[in-house]
């Protein structure tokens, strides 16, 4: 169980052998199960560090990720995407809720017990400039997973590292170079190489391309896709706008102020978005198909994102929602499934099958 080698490869699991696409991946047991996850950062004041409040960075996030699929996690800056990723990888201790990986509850598992599991779950970090130690060579950085986990490699660490470098499209000869000698895109490839070293099952990619030049974003996204097909990876790809994950995701979850407000298959989310916030995000995205644009009014979100220190009561989006009614300020809309595999948390969803929408109110 502890080494990737003696567990059945993910590709043998039912359903995931098919090419990633709608519906194909969502069978069998989820690889990752997140239930009502919460993280409140205490805000302290004064000499005695008295707690005067809490930043509710993540406040009830629920989703499943199935083997072989890619879940996009989208939301504006500060909505808690990175925090969610860090909670799943247990870089942060959850305040509430649960995280299960391959059916095992890891929410409060000790770091010692977590160590072997970490091989199966890796994270690509948001900032390629701060995620690589400036004092280490590429060889040291990409070889660190072997050293930390005490893994023997057949032909030595150097050979293993060079193979991974080639896999992510870097020159294996660059083994002895330092991070500052690479461009942003190359640095992100080094970060990706490091996550691949232990042959993980799940990779959480935190805005893997948002720090990169637009011209090279596609290259890195394509690399992630190729690697997924080659190595049977499961991804949670975090992004702050819907266009980045459109191409790569099988399903997409939309977050607003620490909560998931809508989660659906790619097709239904982009084709028939139900939550007003998703609609707003989508109307900000340039749409490749002009016909789709004609049918949709351009929605401009007004106002700033409210502070997670003091989020609006009930529906958190009501301060910026053009459909908001009195009930939205009184009653929190639950995340309910209104169409097959399409969950939304809104009292007045758009594009919803009529009778179900009524039931939700």
């Amino acid at each position: 169980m502890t080494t990737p080698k003696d567990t059945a490869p993910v590709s043998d699991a039912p359903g995931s052998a098919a090419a990633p696409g709608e519906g194909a991946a969502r069978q069998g047991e989820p690889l990752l199960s997140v239930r009502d996850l919460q993280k409140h950062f205490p805000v302290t004041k004064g000499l005695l560090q008295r707690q005067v409040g809490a930043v509710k960075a993540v406040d009830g996030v629920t989703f499943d990720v199935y083997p072989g699929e890619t879940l996009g996690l989208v939301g504006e800056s500060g909505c808690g995407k990175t925090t969610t990723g860090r909670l799943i990888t247990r870089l942060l201790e959850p305040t509430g809720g649960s995280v299960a990986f391959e059916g095992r509850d890891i929410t409060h598992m000790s770091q010692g017990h977590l160590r072997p599991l970490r091989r199966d779950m890796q994270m690509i970090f948001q900032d390629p400039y701060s995620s690589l130690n400036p004092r280490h060579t590429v060889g040291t950085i990409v070889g660190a997973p072997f050293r930390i986990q005490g893994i023997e490699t057949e032909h030595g660490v150097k050979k293993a590292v060079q193979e991974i470098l080639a896999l992510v499209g870097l020159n294996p000869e660059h083994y002895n170079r330092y991070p500052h000698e690479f461009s942003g895109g190359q640095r992100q490839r080094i970060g990706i190489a490091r996550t691949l070293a232990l042959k993980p099952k799940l990779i959480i990619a935190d805005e893997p391309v948002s720090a990169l030049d637009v011209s090279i974003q596609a290259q890195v996204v394509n690399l992630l896709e190729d690697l997924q097909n080659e190595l049977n990876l499961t991804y949670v790809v975090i992004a702050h706008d819907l266009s980045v994950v459109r191409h790569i995701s099988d399903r997409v979850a939309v977050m607003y102020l620490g909560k998931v407000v809508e989660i659906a298959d790619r097709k239904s989310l982009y084709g028939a978005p139900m939550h007003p916030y998703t609609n707003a995000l989508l109307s900000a995205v340039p749409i490749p198909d002009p016909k789709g644009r004609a049918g949709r009014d351009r929605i401009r979100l007004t106002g700033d994102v409210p502070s997670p220190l003091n989020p609006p009561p009930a529906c958190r989006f009501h301060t910026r929602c053009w459909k908001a009614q009195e009930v939205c300020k009184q009653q929190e809309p639950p995340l309910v499934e209104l169409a097959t595999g399409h969950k939304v948390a809104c009292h007045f969803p758009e594009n919803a099958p009529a009778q179900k929408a009524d039931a939700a109110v």
Partner: protein
Amino acid sequence: MTAPLDVSGTSSEAPPETVLEGASGKAIAGRSLGQIAWMRLKRDKVAMAGATVVVLLIVMALLAPLIVSWLGHPPDEFHEDLVDPNTGVPVGAWGGMSSDFLFGLEPSNGRDLFSRVVYGARISLLIAFLATILSVLIGTILGVVAGYFRGWVDTLISRAMDVFLAFPLLVFAIALVGAIPESAFGLTGDSLRIALLIFIIGFFNWPYIGRIIRGQTLSLREREFVDAARSLGARGPYIIFRELLPNLIAPVLIYSTLLIPSNILFEAALSFLGVGVRPPTPTWGGMLADAVRYYTIPHFTIFPGMAIFITVLAFNLFGDGLRDAFDPRSR
């Protein structure tokens, strides 16, 4: 003066994306940030001048007996025949300066001033270096631990730093050194006093570097490479030694170089006040103290004074250059 090369790796300028460039097979060796800093330092003439003087001073201290046997007389040899028995003033112009006595003679007992200045470097540098090493060791370890673990560990260490910084060190040093017996801890005489001075100067100075290292650690631990190591399952010691400390070498080097001159001054002050290493062992501070009585003969003050001045200046110039080399933005 230096290329705007980014050291801490936060710059967003980067060469254009070229995947698989340089696949021509030529060996590719990376240049570490340390190597880049060294190249930058080599171009800094002022810092290199400082470094040269520092090296010369160290060589002078190490080879003091040899130098003195070439160019002078033993530092404890009295030449009372060359001193006016009534006034104590050396015979001859300029305090008795000649090719035989390069810096002239000491008043009253006629010892060779050149030899004493050369030998004085030994005590000065020995105490300053060892005290600095002690401060840097304690300061770096406690600073990293406080910054990495935070919480109550940090509170404890930070309060300890406050206490140490508020300590009236000079008064304490005078009292302690004045009260020590002739022998203790298996040491006697000069070696006991030198050990004690190293301990006092080193042990009470660690909070300065400790604070710097703690602050740097606090910001370093927020960098994502630390999270990356943790998400791979790395434990505290691995992160401290493999991830954090390599990034702290620059500040440790810089502040060590800047702490040495301040320790030289402190040792000189203690010797001046008569609580340093005792006569007849030559120290620059002690020579200055003796010179006070003979203020009419300036050479007696000038040579030990210049020795302190040049040494402190050289270390400071080198330290500043080192800082600029590691972080050109600090200019």
